[in-house]
Structure formats: structure tokens, C-alpha cells
């Protein structure tokens, strides 16, 4: 009995994210646009998930909900054992601060602040002293290979370097989850590979849970699990290799099918 309950608790704690029938509609000028039609998705600690889907399929909308930056219109979202819809704005801020590290497509570093202070900022909001925050920020910069860049300003760094700073900032407060919406979207292929290697290393070595949105199958291939969205619903949820293979087949069929029909006419 005792064994059973601890195991159940263990299993509970292994679940990081639980999304149950989440719907989201936007209301603009009295017109309601449904975007998510009922998404179900759950994730264990230590997983590396890639989300793919056509433009407008609702990937960013889902990521915003997962990141507690936006609330679902309907359905339930549990993060790290907490019912997110029950939390106030201030509690959500604390939850984001402690639980989630964000990596954005456009890096989103604060100008006017040194790289070190940018990385230290989540700790400052967590109430850590400035000296300690800076010390840990430097450590984290070391970790992403930018140890010597702490005193520079963001605009003095290349895109790839800025994105690595953003990753350092996402990791500095040691959150259980990293959310990355198209982190390689503004980077060239070579730099993308660097960033993805870094994220993969974090997942393998530090068992860091990561959810990543991307358009590129090459990027998604770094993940272990793939979720495909289509028109606000989950189209595929399974191993990344299988999912990507399936995508390739679909694409090939389309490319082969089209010329064939053109020829017949």
C-alpha cells in the first residue's frame, strides 16, 4: 500500500504538463475566431518535445497558454501540479519566474542592460541579491560558452550569440521547463545547429524539459517527441522520427501527385 502510494506520487510528480481539452478563441471587433478547438497533451519531466504545424495552426497560441502568458477560453491546464486558471496575475508571474524559461524567436534581450544583467534579471525578480544574481548569471553564461561577453551590450553580439544569452537567461533560475517558440527562426543553418546542439545537450545531460516550436524538420529532428497541430487540433503525437518520416511521405505524395494530375490534363 505504502509502496503503491509513493509510486503513484512519483508518477504524479513525473508529469510536468497536463493539457485537457483546451480551447482558445480570440475576440476582435465582436468577431470570435476560434484558434484551438480542444487540445489534449501531457508531458513528463525530462522530455524534449517539438511542435510543428502550418502557419496559423495555433502553435504560438498553445505556447502562450503553456507559458502562462495567456489563459485558455475553456479546458484545463495543470503545470507542475498547479491548476493555472486559479492563479492571480501576481501568482502567475511568480510561477513563470520559478517554473518556465522562455526563449523567443527575436531573442528579446533588454537593450541598455549588460548581457550579465540581462541573464541575472529572473533572479532579481525572484528576490536574489544582486551580487549573487550576477555570480550565477556569469556561471550560466560560461555554460553557454559566452563567459567573456558579460559586460557587453546586447547589440554588440551576433544573433546566434544573443540567442545563447537568451538560453542562459531562461536557465539561470533553474526552471523545470524551457519553452522555445521558433528559437532558430531568425538564424542561419550553421547557427541553428549550434543552438540546437546546446538545447539537446541540456536535455541529455541536465534532463531539462524542453518544448520547441519549429517549421524546420531538421530542427524538429533533435527532439525525441513530435506534436503536430492542424487547425487547432493535435494531428500527430508520438516519436519524432516516426512523425517526421510520416511528414516526408505526405509531402512526397503531394509533390508527386500534383505533377501527375497536371500531366493527365
Amino acid at each position, binding site marked *: 500500500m505504502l509502496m503503491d502510494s509513493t509510486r503513484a506520487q512519483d508518477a504524479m510528480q513525473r508529469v510536468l504538463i497536463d493539457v485537457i481539452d483546451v480551447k482558445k478563441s480570440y475576440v476582435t471587433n465582436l468577431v470570435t475566431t476560434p484558434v484551438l478547438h480542444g487540445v489534449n497533451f501531457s508531458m513528463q519531466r525530462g522530455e524534449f518535445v517539438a511542435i510543428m504545424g502550418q502557419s496559423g495552426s495555433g502553435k504560438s497560441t498553445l505556447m502562450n497558454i503553456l*507559458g502562462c502568458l495567456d489563459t485558455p477560453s475553456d479546458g484545463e491546464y495543470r503545470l507542475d501540479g498547479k491548476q493555472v486558471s486559479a492563479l492571480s496575475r501576481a501568482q502567475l508571474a511568480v510561477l*513563470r519566474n520559478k517554473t518556465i524559461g522562455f526563449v523567443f524567436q527575436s531573442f528579446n534581450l533588454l537593450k541598455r542592460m549588460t548581457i550579465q544583467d540581462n541573464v541575472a534579471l529572473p533572479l532579481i525578480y525572484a528576490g536574489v541579491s544582486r551580487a549573487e544574481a550576477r555570480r550565477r548569471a556569469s556561471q550560466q553564461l560560461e555554460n553557454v560558452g559566452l563567459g567573456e561577453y558579460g559586460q557587453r551590450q546586447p547589440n554588440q553580439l551576433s544573433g546566434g550569440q544573443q540567442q545563447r544569452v537568451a538560453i542562459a*537567461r531562461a536557465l539561470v533560475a533553474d526552471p523545470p521547463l524551457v519553452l522555445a517558440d521558433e528559437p532558430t527562426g531568425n538564424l542561419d543553418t550553421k547557427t541553428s545547429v549550434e543552438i540546437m546542439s546546446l538545447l539537446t545537450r541540456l536535455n541529455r545531460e541536465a534532463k531539462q524539459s524542453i518544448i520547441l516550436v519549429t517549421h524546420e524538420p531538421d530542427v524538429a529532428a533533435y527532439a525525441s517527441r513530435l506534436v503536430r497541430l492542424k487547425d487547432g487540433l493535435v494531428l500527430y503525437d508520438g516519436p519524432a522520427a516516426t512523425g517526421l518520416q510520416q511528414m516526408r511521405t505526405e509531402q512526397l505524395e503531394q509533390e508527386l501527385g500534383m505533377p501527375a494530375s497536371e500531366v493527365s490534363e
Partner: protein
Amino acid sequence: MKFGHIFAEAFRAMLANPLRTMLTMLGIIIGIASVVLMLAIGDGIKKFIDKQLAVLGSNLILVQSDTRKSPGARARTGTTQTLTIDDAEAINRLSSVAGAVPVLNTFSQIAYGNTNANAQVQGTTSATFVIRNLRLGAGIGLSEVDVTSASRVAVLGKKIAEELFYKNDPIGQSIRIDNQSFQVIGVLDNEGQSFDMGDVGQIVLVPISTARVSLVRMQTPRSVAYIVAQSKTAEGVNEMVRDIEEVLRDRHRIRADDPDDFRVVNFGEIAKQGEAIGKGLAFALGFIGAVSLVVGGIGIMNIMLVSVTERTREIGIRMAIGARPSDVLWQFLIEAIAICLVSGIVGIAISMGLAAAVNATGMFELTVGVRAILIATLFSGFIGVFFGFYPARRASKLQPVECLRYE
């Protein structure tokens, strides 16, 4: 998030756009400077008046003849000069009076050797030294014997003594007043302006008897120009004025329904009027200051609203990584307060500079006191809170998703 950190960020934000910050601060700077100057001028006027009263002596009144209002009395007595040495003595005997001195004034040429000067010569009695707080820098003052025997002695003001004698000792020297020989027996130590003598440093005091005999020709022999009297206490001034009116009406045989043939001037009242004028001036300056502070505050509010809009994305990023609405509110509120406090300090510095410039002219003394600095600092902080709150609150209410989408 700690306040020191927020302040550091506020200053960084201010420095990010220095010209704009400076222009925004201008209204508050002008406002604070004029409020501080207002307080300094208010204090300055009060000090100026207090100093004059101290030079003159306190609780003093002046009795002048005033025949304009009583042609009937003039016709009956056949004179125009109604106050006499005997009136002064009668006033001196009143129980409410600490001392009373008769005064005869003349503007005369003073000569020592080849040096000439023009000065006001005042014929008076020894009591004048007591009731006017006159101090001697050298020698002795006028004595009762000097007055009764009409001695040809004079006490000089500090400046006139320097003018005539330069660095030599004037005591015992002989000077000429309107070509008549007088011996200098004393030099005054007092400085400043007095209501009836002008610059105390420029005065020459002689016994009233000597003045009457040698310097001033009056229509009746015992007439005086006016009488200065001091009451025993500050509260007793009004009582003394009533007593004086009573004794003079009696002595001048004025009938109950006739008006007075003299006029009592209360220096305390004049001082109070001066103070009231000073207060009025200070109030006007304060009003100008208040208006420019309000206008400046609106300017701050405007620029903070612009700043919130400009930094929407920054707000989104901060919220995403863990800034609570209250953190955002404090950040913008403290930025507004910091702008106002820096403006306040600059305003105080400017007003101190202006006060120093005014003081350098030597005409008027302006001191920017601790009270003024404290009031100005608190006031500018308050403006920051008042006009910074709305923009800060607006920033704190922004939704993180929308901020992050903002270009």
C-alpha cells in the same frame, strides 16, 4: 525586487534619453526653484524687518504734530508746531512709558579739516541711546548734563566717522556742523536702516538743546519735530498709545469733539504691514511655482505615458521572466519620482545660486533654509508620485502576450 535595483534602473532609463529627460524636468525645475525662492524671500523680508526693529529698538512709537485735520485748534492756539519738549517730559512721566525722547532733525554740512560730508543731524536726549538700542564703538554718549547745558558735543555714526577721520581717532576732535564747532565724544557701533533716522551709520547725534540754539530755527522755542517713546512691554504698546493721546489732548486743551492735533505712528504696526506685504509677495511667487509644478507634473505624466508605450515590449519581456504587476508599477513610479527628485535638486541648486547672486549685491539677504529644501524635496517627490501613478498603473495592467506581440 529591491528598491536600490529599481532606482539604478530608473536612472539608466533617464540617461537613455538625456535630452528628453532634461526637457521634461524643466517645468519641475522652474517650479521648485520659484517655490524655494518664495520661501527665501518670505524669510528674507521677515529677517529684514526684524533687523530694522532691532536697530530701531522694539515697542517704539512716534508722535508727530498733525494740524491738517484740526484747523479749528490751529486757529485757537495760533501755532503750527504743537509738540514741545514739555510734552516729551510729560509722556516720559507716564507709567506705561519706558522712555520718551524729543527729536529735532536737520540736514547739515559736516566738516573736519578739509573733509566735508552731508549728514542728518539729530538733536535729542540721552534716553535715545537706551530706547533705540544704540551702542557705542568708542567714547561716550550724550549725557543729561550735555542736554541741560547745551554742550557743543556730537556722537557720530560709524560710516560718517570713517568718512571724516579715515583711520584716525575721532574722539576729542573738533568738527564743524553748519560752520559751528562741536567736539566728537563718541562713535556709534550700530549698522542698518532705522525708520526715522535713515542709515544709522550716517547719523550725527547732538543734544537737543544745542540743536535748538545753534542748528534748527523753530517758530516757538520749545517746539520739537517729533517724540519717540518706548513702552515697557510689547503688550503695553496700545495702552501706552491711549495714555499718550489722553495726556496730549489734555495738555493741548483739545475739546472732546475736536480731533487730535497730533498723530501717533506705531512702528510695530508698520512692521506688521511690511510683513503682510512680504507675505503677499511670497504667496504670489508660491502661486507661480505651484502653477509651473502642475504644468511640469503634467509634462512628466505625458512623457511617462509615452515611455510606457515605447517600452511595451520591454514590459512584456519582464513580465514573461517573472515581473509581477507590482514590480512593473514600482519601476515606472520610481522612474517618475526619480525624475522629479533630480529636478527638485537642480531647482534647489538654481535657487541657491540666485540667492547667492542677490546676496552679493548686498541690498537684500536671501537664505535658502533647511526648511525650504525639505519642503521642496518632499514636494517634488509628491509630484512624482501623483503624476507618475497613472502611467505606472497602466503599465502594470498590460497583458504579457499583447506586450510581446507589440512591435
